[in-house]
């Protein structure tokens, strides 16, 4: 690494103006992390916001920014499904075809859309407006079947509503997510937000849809609440102590993790899953 500005000798094919803007954005991204390499995922979203996919120039730019080889950046870019290696349409229409949505109608929706648009998975209509995808579970199962347009939620879809949605997108009309911003932005604009550049639209849209509030609605109706603060926990009956000291037989510090570890990762079985962790 040298102190010389990267832009001065970039091997990318970006014009000077584009490059200068990218370099400024990259500086901001790298500044968010103790180690600049942590900025690689946002940097890839950023370059995707320029050309609508992660191009050769995008790869080279990220490599130059982080002092990596193009191969190292490509290895990361190809691991994640949101990075496209060929030009994407203006709108990604993703139909959830993981089990629950598929069973509830996602398969029928995908088939109808595929037929209607005459494209298959990860293919783009000739006019460049729509890229159709099968997507995995997007954490909206209580709104199944779900369609995502540029990763905004379109809940409770049918083959008819989805084809109408696609037609509106192709004709350039604005569409409004069920839960999300007031309108769907372009794939490039979305990629820029995912790079961490706020577009100021967080206050658009609702906080929750019906299913999200279903349990709360019932609780309100029946007067059910959480216990009322400190007093609520039966006074005088201390809870059984369950915090073993580290190093004792019960401590998990010394215990071999059960399969999934305690973290849950994805998968896990034992836990897991979700990814979560914890």
């Amino acid at each position: 690494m040298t102190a010389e500005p990267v832009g001065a000798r970039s091997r990318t094919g970006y014009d000077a103006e584009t490059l200068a803007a990218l370099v400024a954005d990259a500086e901001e991204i790298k500044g968010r992390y103790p180690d600049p390499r942590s900025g690689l995922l946002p940097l890839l979203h950023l370059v995707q916001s320029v050309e609508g996919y992660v191009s050769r120039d995008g790869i080279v730019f990220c490599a130059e920014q982080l002092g990596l080889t193009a191969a190292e950046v490509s290895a990361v870019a190809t691991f994640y499904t949101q990075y496209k290696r060929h030009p994407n349409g203006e709108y990604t229409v993703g139909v959830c075809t993981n089990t629950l949505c598929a069973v509830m109608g996602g398969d029928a929706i995908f088939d109808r859309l595929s037929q209607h648009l005459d494209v298959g998975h990860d293919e783009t209509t000739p006019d460049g407006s729509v890229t159709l995808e099968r997507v995995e579970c997007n954490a909206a199962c209580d709104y199944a079947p779900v369609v995502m347009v540029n990763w905004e939620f379109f809940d409770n879809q049918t083959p008819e509503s989805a084809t109408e949605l696609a037609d509106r997108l192709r004709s350039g009309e604005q569409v409004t997510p069920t839960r999300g911003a007031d309108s769907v932005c372009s794939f490039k604009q979305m990629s820029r937000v995912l790079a961490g550049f706020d577009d100021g639209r967080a206050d658009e849209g609702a906080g929750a849809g019906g299913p999200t509030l279903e349990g709360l609605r019932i609780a309100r109706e029946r007067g059910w609440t959480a216990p009322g603060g400190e007093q609520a926990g039966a006074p005088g009956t201390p809870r059984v102590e369950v915090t073993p000291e580290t190093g004792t037989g019960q401590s998990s510090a010394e215990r071999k993790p059960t399969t999934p570890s305690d973290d849950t990762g994805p998968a896990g079985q034992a836990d897991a899953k979700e990814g979560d962790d914890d």
Partner: protein
Amino acid sequence: MTDPLTPVLTDTWDAESSWKLATYEAAGGYAGLRAALGTDPADLVQLVKDSGLRGRGGAGFPAGMKWGFLPPPDGGPRYLVVNADESEPGTCKDIPLMMASPQHLVEGVAITSYAIGCHHAFIYVRGEVLHVYRRLLAAVREAYEAGHLGTNIHGSGFDLEVTVHAGAGAYICGEETALLDSLEGRRGQPRLKPPFPAVAGLYARPTVVNNVESIASVPGIVAHGADWFSSMGTEKSTGHGLFSLSGHVTRPGQFEAPLGITLRELLDLAGGVREGHELKFWTPGGSSTPLFTAEHLDVPLDYESVGAAGSMLGTRALQIFDETTCVVRAVSRWTDFYAHESCGKCTPCREGTYWLKQILHRIEAGAGEAGDIDVLLDLCDNILGRAFCALGDGATSPITSSIEYFRDEYEAHLDGRGCPFDPARSTLFDDTPQAPPALAGAGGH
């Protein structure tokens, strides 16, 4: 005795502009942080241990104990990383939480960071939820502006920076060490453990990785006390949790209840299985947890009881399937998912999920043979416990459990017979009974 539903995290979700800081503060938000800043950090760790809070991301590991595993301060940085990569099939609790009330999480991040001595925390949210990412960015910004984050928070001398980071589409990044690699700008592949993240996590520094709901539960514990939290739930599975009902149920949605509630009770609240149908199988905690059937309706949904009944509480992702659903199709599709999301690092998972998928596809298509079911079980036996992380184990759960309960249904597909189910009947839109033509127009629907 607590009420059947106990709204804590969900309590502000129906408010106007529920995601705004002002809404959260009007409902008492950030009282926990103010209380925490006047408390010794070690006492906060003890408080969370005493509450019995267990990880809400699936594993159920005690959160306070996890925090307690950090080595003593050595002057270098320590990190908190929130796992907001919610991707387990069926799991849909953290995303609506962050959409409706991201401040619950941000306050939890501030308190937890103070408790563990962290000055830079990260929220790693999956990239496929654009508006949720916007809400998180805005929530963190609002919290900075109000002095809940930043330098010298509320005059305490405590500094905290929070970075919201979007992933890019990879289920495996929900595994905590894969998440850390991803956050370091690498392919999201799990790390060998030990060392655990508590010892060598982000940038090889001591790190706590916790799920969104776990961290969001912390402010309530600090504000109301450990006894308040543990007055909900069971002795070993304390507190409130989000239960997510989806699938063939009349009114799907989020139900925040004490751990230990049963599916029968939840289904009653949700209007039951959709009209005219009956429960066939369900997942207690996402697709990686072995299937349950109607015989498990009364299993208390706590870690111990679900485990004793042969599955796992997981993420309380209750996916409900009725009798119109072909279990082979359901499992085959989940297997496609695991094969697609296998990171490729270890052979049992990479190759195993690939072969599981091939065999399930041919069974579903009617091209399976008598020995295929046993080959599936044999493959699962070679993956379970031999994969590098829990993804491989999870891939076997739906297969082995479905064969246990529905072996005859697998057999019905074999030898050219194919699937006996009509997939249209399982959908929400093709199953509406059509009025016989003779009655059409005869008044009333």
